[in-house]
């Protein structure tokens, strides 16, 4: 399942997409430590599989929370959380 966490308001659309089907095969859980703001957490989904989600309180603040990893100049090809996921299951849409 592709879970899109984030929001849209008058300034734009800010979502992080997570392909949670790959979480069950993941041993490293690299996403949890890769984010300096600790936006990710592991939870049991409705079907009792452990998957990564964006913490509920952070969903509507991603624009500001993630700004630190997105400099205007020399933005890395892969953000720390995108790189940390060995399955490349995390994608920022902005």
């Amino acid at each position, binding site marked *: 399942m592709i879970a899109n966490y984030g*929001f849209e308001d008058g300034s734009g659309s800010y979502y992080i997409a997570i392909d949670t089907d790959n979480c069950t095969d993941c041993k490293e859980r690299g996403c949890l430590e890769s984010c300096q703001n600790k936006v990710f957490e592991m939870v049991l989904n409705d079907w009792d599989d452990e998957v990564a989600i964006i913490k509920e309180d952070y969903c509507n603040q991603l624009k500001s929370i993630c700004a630190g990893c997105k400099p205007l100049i020399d933005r890395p090809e892969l953000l720390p959380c995108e790189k940390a996921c060995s399955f490349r299951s995390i994608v920022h849409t902005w």
Partner: protein
Amino acid sequence: MTMSNVEKVEYWRWGESNWKNPNISDCSGSLITAGVDIGSTSTQAVILADGELYAYSSIRTGSNSPNSAIDAMKWAMDGTGLSLEDLRYTVGTGYGRVNVPFADKSVTEISCHARGANMIYGPSLRTILDMGGQDCKAIHCNEVGRVTSFMMNDKCAAGTGRGMEVIANLLSVHVEDIGKMSFMIDEEPPPVSSVCVIFAKTEATNLMRAGWSKEKVLAAYCHAMALRVARLLERNGMEEDFAITGGIAKNIGVVRRIERILGVRALETEMDQQIAGALGAATIANEKITNWWRRKK
């Protein structure tokens, strides 16, 4: 005229309802399961008898979520002879899913809406737009109602029932009349702001001052709301068949404009689209208890 003589009209208040399946006269001996969807604005309760839709209710969520869940369930049970003790398994869902005091499990509203919409519209359904009181969700599901992707926005009132209530109060039009009134125009006007309800409200006020009729302003507002949610659907991807759930599914002005923007016709139903979440929850409850029984044998 004094203030005490003025009748205060609540234009935002939509009608609460309950329903009982006329084809089921006696459910004694049946497996009774239930789902309760406590939303930020409305609460629905659905009862299944041996997996078949038996009764439901839809009420305004009060200030106390547990009481809203109990009130909704009791009203759904009205005339059935059932009591809370007859429920073999109940699933709570929605914004207040952990506040259903008699629930055996809570399941997210995304999963429940997909399952409930699959029950209402059938296995061909792939894209669901749920327009709730304070949030808006675009959901993809497979043929058995299992979610394959979702995108939700609850940051902003634009595209939600709350936004519609704001315009109902502004124009002194009952919220249930907005849809049909929005078509009482000669020509479709351009939309008001689709990015923010505050901006849209200001624009609507200015348009009224400029001489626009209420109907024309409502058309512009419904158009803006349709544009806003169409963007969410396109961002998550559109695939037919497509259906709309939630309270705004009853607003024909928004529904028809969404269809026109996307070039896709939404599936229709005689059922109350607002019960999709609770119906999905009740269906999951039914599966949980019947699977448990099968494992026990």
